[in-house]
């Protein structure tokens, strides 16, 4: 038990889940065929809003995180409205510029503490540990140490978040809104001609993506004790984009698998982790050339269903 639950593995599992949540954030925007390059910026808004609220204003974490997400999504609407009336390229550029502006503002504001960042953020693990000892389990539960228990609880919290998001997206896909998203992705002007307010739905998908990125930002702030402007630079956006490019963005499972693979690989191949971003870059070029739909697409699922279905019958 101790081998599996060691600190290092738990930490990796936590980052896999956080990255999977970020993968969902870019998936939602891509669901209408729009590319947002501002996810790191929205993460940053969520993280800073949440950290400032909990550290400086003493708000509880469970309020700080959603408020951070809402702040990110509110700002996304301001950026998205002018850009989304035009073709997809405009949103990509406007959000890319936006990410840089957030970085500049965070560097200059007093409340964000400039380049030094905010430290001493109460971690989710510590809070849960405290709650556990208040409940009468100061030494952990069921033979686990206090730290293992609280880390495990963090893992459970993240897993619940991700499960809810998967539930949300599956429900959404099989509803009127999801069909509108898919129609816009397939053919925007035909969708408009069929009575869909394309600007509204593109903005909705973009704002939902920003909301989730903002929430992920808030979570990350309370996982790492410290946040600084460098945590949310352009590289972070590219990393999130690579999850969707590798895994595929047709289905919700795609970017989640992408996040899993790309978070685990550098841990497994320590020597390659130095070249991580170069590999990401080459991967993006190769995927676009050979498999633009990503590893998992609707056809992949159809193929395996048929194959497994036949296997069952035999």
């Amino acid at each position, binding site marked *: 038990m101790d081998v599996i639950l060691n600190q290092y593995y738990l930490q990796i599992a936590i980052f896999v889940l956080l990255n999977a949540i970020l993968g969902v954030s870019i998936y939602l925007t891509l669901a209408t065929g729009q590319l947002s390059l501002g996810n790191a910026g929205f993460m940053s808004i969520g993280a800073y809003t949440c950290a400032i609220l909990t550290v400086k204003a003493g708000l509880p974490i469970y309020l700080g995180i959603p408020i951070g997400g809402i702040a990110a999504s509110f700002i996304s609407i301001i950026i998205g409205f002018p850009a989304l009336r035009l073709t997809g390229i405009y949103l990509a550029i406007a959000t890319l510029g936006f990410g840089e502006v957030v970085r500049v503002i965070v560097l200059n504001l007093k409340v964000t503490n400039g380049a030094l960042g905010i430290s001493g953020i109460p971690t989710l693990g510590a809070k849960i540990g405290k709650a556990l000892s208040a409940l009468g389990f100061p030494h952990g539960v069921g033979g686990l140490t206090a730290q293992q228990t609280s880390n495990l609880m963090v893992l459970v919290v993240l897993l619940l978040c991700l499960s809810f998001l998967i539930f949300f997206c599956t429900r959404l896909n099989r*509803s009127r809104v999801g069909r509108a998203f898919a129609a816009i992705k397939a053919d925007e002007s035909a969708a408009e001609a069929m009575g869909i307010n394309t600007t509204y739905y593109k903005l909705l998908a973009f704002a939902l993506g920003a909301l989730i990125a903002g929430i992920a930002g808030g979570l990350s702030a309370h996982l790492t004790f410290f946040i600084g402007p460098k945590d949310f630079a352009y590289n972070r956006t590219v990393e999130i984009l690579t999850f969707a490019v590798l895994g595929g963005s047709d289905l919700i499972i795609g970017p989640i698998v992408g996040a899993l693979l790309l978070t685990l690989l550098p841990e497994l191949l320590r020597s390659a982790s130095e070249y991580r971003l170069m590999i990401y870059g080459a991967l993006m070029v190769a995927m676009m050339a050979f498999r633009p739909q990503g590893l998992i697409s609707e056809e992949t699922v159809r193929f395996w269903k048929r194959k497994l279905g036949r296997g069952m019958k035999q």
Partner: protein
Amino acid sequence: MTLVLDQVSKSFGGLAALGNVSFTVNGGEIVGIIGPNGAGKTTLFNLITGIFPPSSGKISYKGKNLLGIRPYKVTSLGLARTFQNIRLFGHMSPLDNVMVGAHCRTKAGVWKGLWRTPTQRKEEKRTRERAQALLQLVGVENDSDTPAGSLPYGQQRRLEIARALATEPEIILLDEPAAGMNESETEDLRLLIKKIQMMGKTVILIEHDMNLVMNVCDRLVVINFGQKIAEGTPAEIQKNPLVIEAYLGREEA
């Protein structure tokens, strides 16, 4: 008079595509728009459905000015169209394609879709049933394993009509629905168009298949080089010398 076009012109970068075209369409009619390739027929559809605005002139529907109204709103006002170059949502199932058409007549948003509230489920059920009925009407089988883009050509054309009908239009604009169809398919299409008329809908039809046009339309508008050159019943049009000239060319003496 349901749809009124008054002196409508459109030019692209100085090139006139349509010049001062006027005609009206009455409720319940089947009106054919014919003319040689490149005459500006599809441009006319694009103007009516708000894809782009006319350079000058007025278009109104039931007394309401359609200028400057975005395409999705035109559709919810009751005008739906199909496309000359089929534009289905290729990866989606036939049923989903038709259900997208019902978008502007349904309401459930993100919240209701997430929790599947009773109203949402009722709405979804009704939408699905209506879509299935429309698929049956046009004669397209829904097979969830065959995406719309993989259907045979004739079926895709009919699926587009079902999708347009799902928007519950009063006027349906069909852009060359018989293109690429064989004779028996075209005959089925003629019956379908008649059925649509009997459902109380108005049909505007762009078509090259003269047999179909002459058989199904109540009235024809002929366009050549962006100008309306004739208007009348099929019998009148067949005798009109200007129309004969446009199609056959001037007899060289």
